[in-house]
């Protein structure tokens, strides 16, 4: 099974427990539908997300990555997302600078009540990543026959 055959992107979303994860749960309660491609990893705070997680996700085969947390000012831990903002503003630019398409990495503020925004973001990111096709950059193929580096 070659990765290039399918275009069913894998998208990972690091979501803070207090806002976005709750917002995603609310999307569930509302029965809002979005693509199956988005998978949430629960973290206590977006400030917990180490930029190296993103590199690892691209390395091992994610086609898109999201980092989501509370809106600035709403952090459950009062200041975590301010650091997230600084950290990922730089990281996003650095990734683009290294040739990762901006469509593959998204940082968003989604509150616990913004179920609609979560759904819309999931749809939007999936569409964008699907258009870009499978990610090969920074990708480490586990087996030789799968190697398809550019």
């Amino acid at each position, binding site marked *: 099974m070659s990765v290039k055959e399918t275009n069913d992107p894998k998208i990972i979303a690091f979501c803070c427990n207090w806002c976005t994860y709750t917002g995603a749960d609310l999307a569930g309660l509302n029965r809002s539908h979005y693509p199956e491609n988005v998978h949430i990893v629960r973290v206590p705070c977006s400030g917990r997300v180490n930029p190296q997680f993103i590199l690892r996700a691209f390395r091992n085969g994610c086609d898109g990555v999201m980092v989501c947390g509370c809106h600035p000012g709403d952090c459950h831990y009062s200041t975590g997302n301010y650091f997230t903002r600084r950290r990922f503003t730089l990281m996003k630019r650095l990734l683009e600078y290294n040739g990762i398409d901006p469509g593959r990495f998204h940082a968003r503020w989604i509150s616990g009540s913004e179920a609609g925004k979560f759904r819309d973001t999931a749809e939007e990111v999936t569409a964008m990543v699907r258009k870009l096709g499978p990610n090969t950059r920074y990708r480490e193929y*586990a087996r030789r026959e799968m190697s398809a580096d550019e």
Partner: protein
Amino acid sequence: MKIKKDKFKDALASIAKEAKVFLPMKGVYASEYRVWDGAGEPFFERNTALPPKELLFPRSERMYEYDLNAGTVTEAAPDEKIVIAGIRPCDVRSVEHLDKVFLESEYTDVYYRARRENLTMIAYGCATPAPTCFCDSMDVVPTDAPGADVVMNDAGNSYVLTVNTPKGEHIRDLISSFLSEGKADDVPAVSCSLKVEKPDDLHKQLIARFDDPMWETLSDACLGCGCCSYICPTCYCFDIGRENRGKTGTAFRCWDSCMFSDYSRMAGGHNPRPTKKERLRNRYLHKLAYFPERYGTSLCVGCGRCIDKCPARLDITNVPDIIQGSESNG
């Protein structure tokens, strides 16, 4: 036998029909033995930044792949024929040393063997040693490489070829249409400017001075990076790792360096070589004492790469200098 320089590429093209040809070439950032694309110019003026060991002992090598779902293990079996055209005599000597380690000791390394058997070396007799070169002090003749399959020397507008082995004869047959008669004995002698005087029992003296304060001075400026090991043609340490993906995965090995602090760190945290002093001493002793003790020859071939590239300008030739100095002083 001779080959006109303007026929050299045609000859390479003939070889390239049945083997992957590597030439010393300039890269965008550093020179190395690169796959010849049919057009690239050889870079004979200096030895390459990277040694040829990568072709036998890759930086990172997949050893086997496994699939627990299918219950299969697939071992890598490199079978690509490789010809290095223009390998320097110092580097040929380094391959001879690697052979000792990977083939001639009680354990044979299957991956190395597979690659080695498929390798043909056409040496290029060195006419332009760099200021950091000292191979002739390490028993290498710059213009000759008995360990190579073919030796090639610059003779004005042509190269003079000497065939040493059956593999060499095969190369000769492949390129016979470009060859003409010619003698090899007109190759002028070449001498390195950097000379290293070393006593015959250097390895014994070094081991005797295991606790000498000189190691501290020698390692003062060491940064503890792996530069010297990785550009050394004879450093052969590796680490084995695994890339697991669920029930499938790959075992790989990759270069490692005894200059790294975590190289000798044990699981419990103890490190028998806790500082750069012990680590640099180990590397120098490996080159100049342990290997000679075991195999009867210095592991250092005098290619000078480590002197040239060391960020702190450490110089392995200072070691025999100190011994020689204290010998002549004492």
